[in-house]
């Protein structure tokens, strides 16, 4: 419906190579933009620094997840084997010193909980699944997963300005600059 009022998402500009994208990212970072991102088909080495991104905090989540897993395994093994129903099998005792026999399960549950934390922690950090996104409205953005290199600066950014931002993108080597709008 053409009568629907559209909301501006931001500018999308294409760059010709990973090197050009890297150089452009450094300039946008130095201009002090905050709501923007570089899009590419594969992770580009060093782009985090060029964009001024901090190291991912995912390892801390996973560390906590792993500790939870180990604690779960210890509680499970100790409670069931020593507290609730001590069974003497093959003359192995049922007390705290049975701990070495619990090591494989301590290890496995540590790994299992860590792995699940990686998955769900990652999804939380990158805010996915999100099947719809204004960028998918763009007529050229589908090339990002093939061979396109793009930078999108969002209208939410306090520095965003319709004319100046477009000029900046053109000046740092962006082509096919497109104003992306969402319904």
């Amino acid at each position: 419906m053409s009568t629907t009022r559209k909301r501006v998402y931001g500018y999308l500009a294409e760059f010709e190579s990973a090197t050009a994208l890297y150089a452009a990212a450094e300039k946008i970072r130095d201009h002090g933009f905050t709501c923007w991102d570089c899009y590419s088909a594969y992770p580009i080495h060093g782009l985090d620094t060029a964009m001024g991104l901090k190291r991912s905090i995912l390892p801390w989540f996973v560390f906590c997840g792993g500790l939870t897993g180990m604690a779960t395994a210890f509680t499970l093994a100790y409670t069931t084997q020593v507290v609730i129903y001590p069974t003497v099998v093959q003359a192995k005792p049922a007390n705290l010193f049975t701990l070495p026999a619990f090591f494989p399960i301590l290890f496995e549950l540590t790994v299992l909980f860590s792995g699940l934390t990686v998955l769900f922690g990652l999804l939380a950090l990158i805010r996915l699944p999100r099947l719809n996104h204004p960028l998918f409205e763009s007529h050229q953005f589908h090339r990002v997963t093939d061979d396109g290199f793009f930078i999108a600066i969002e209208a939410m950014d306090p520095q965003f300005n319709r004319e100046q931002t477009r000029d900046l993108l053109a000046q740092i080597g962006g082509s096919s600059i497109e104003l992306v709008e969402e319904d």
Partner: protein
Amino acid sequence: MPLTSETVPKPPVSIKLPVLEREKLVLHGRSYHWITTRVCGILENKQPLLWWWIFIPCTLIAIIGVGGGLVRLVSTGVGIWGNSNRVMWGWPIVNFVFWIGIGHAGTLISAILFLTRQNWRTSINRASEAMTIFAVICAGIFPAFHVGRVWFAWFLAPLPNANGIWQNFKSPLLWDVFAVSTYFTISLIFWYLGLVPDLATIRDRCKPGLRKIVYGIFAIGWRGGNRQWSHYEMAYLLLASLATVLVLSVHSVVSFDFASSVVPGWHTTIFPPYFVAGAIFGGFAMVLTIMLPARFIYGLQDLITMKHIDNMARIILLTGTIVGYAYLMELFVAFYTGAIYEMDAFKFRITGPYWWAYAVMMTCNVISPQVFWFKACRENLWVVMIVAMCINVGMWFERFVIIVGTLARTWLPGDWKCFAPTLQDQSLFVGTLGLFLALFMLFLRFLPCINIAEVKWTLKESNPHHEPPDDPGVTRIPAYQKENLKSPPPRS
């Protein structure tokens, strides 16, 4: 420049450093778009006739062998597996250990080779991870059903039974349940996370319709922004580290099932490293068995180069030699300890009624991979394929020798029986082979069999800091690559 005689060396005009280039992982300077089109083309175009010729028989074998076999087993009872003596239990265990071992190469390629920055892994990691998942599925069938009354298989889970008795956490069999289920879960997460960017690639190439919706849902809205890649790469690194310890632990735990028993021939400390090396060895052979035909059928020679095959052949040679060392060391330790029961167990394996299984194991696993010392053999795909097939057979027989060859002579002479698989036994195993291949065919049909994003990442121009090609200070010497022998690249 003035003329000089032969004996006086020319003064150096400028110092040129010789630089040996790395082998190219993608040949013929293929572009990003070519890689996308070639890999996605496999699942977007019609499958070749050969695909149907493999898929339909495999599916039938899987339905009859696994589906029919299990229905008959559950409705009749495990007696149809001929479980009338202790040796007969060996068959499901042989197949379980065989399949679980196959999976290890996938995890090694995706995890250990990732941590050691072996970029050649990128072309083969997706298919090997898929192979891991399917192999673990095949493996899981055997222990789940060999419990006899399968509706009590929940006894394996850490839940109390009706009398309030819990599982024995000191038992290697319960460790195995945890190890295998963790292995499957982590492998699945690893595989799926790796797939997400490639599923997004397929989503973006689809025309609007059901296909786009389905791929779109599984691609969870991936956009390829660097704020996503940054966390994604960290997640991949973490999973690789977790999977690295898993690949070493799973088959170790499987080997504890044997090593912690008091049975001559099983009760040895060499079992964990020996099983892990054997698993990686057998797994790489299976990767080659399925990837060599796939590479040929789908024309992936520029992505899976002779260099990749050469590397895999070298790993097979290394792990095969470790396995050979373990076989010999087992014999030496049996002799050196002076334990008569231990010595007798090995004498029985070598000269007893299963001497032929031992001979097949030794020939296929120790002797056949030794041809890979020679470059000509590593570069001849027929030789590579034949050796890989030999290893597949040999690794199955290794488990047969270890399990059946030991159970047939345990402590009590009343247990001394010989083993013959029933028709049910055989059809279930053949059924899992069909299931494995059928699942792999479906994988080739519906999912990108090469990790598109990671292969693009290995291209030289993907690194924003790659050196300019015309650096005057160096002379580039191209690395040896078999494909370049016919048309050597121009030296610059």
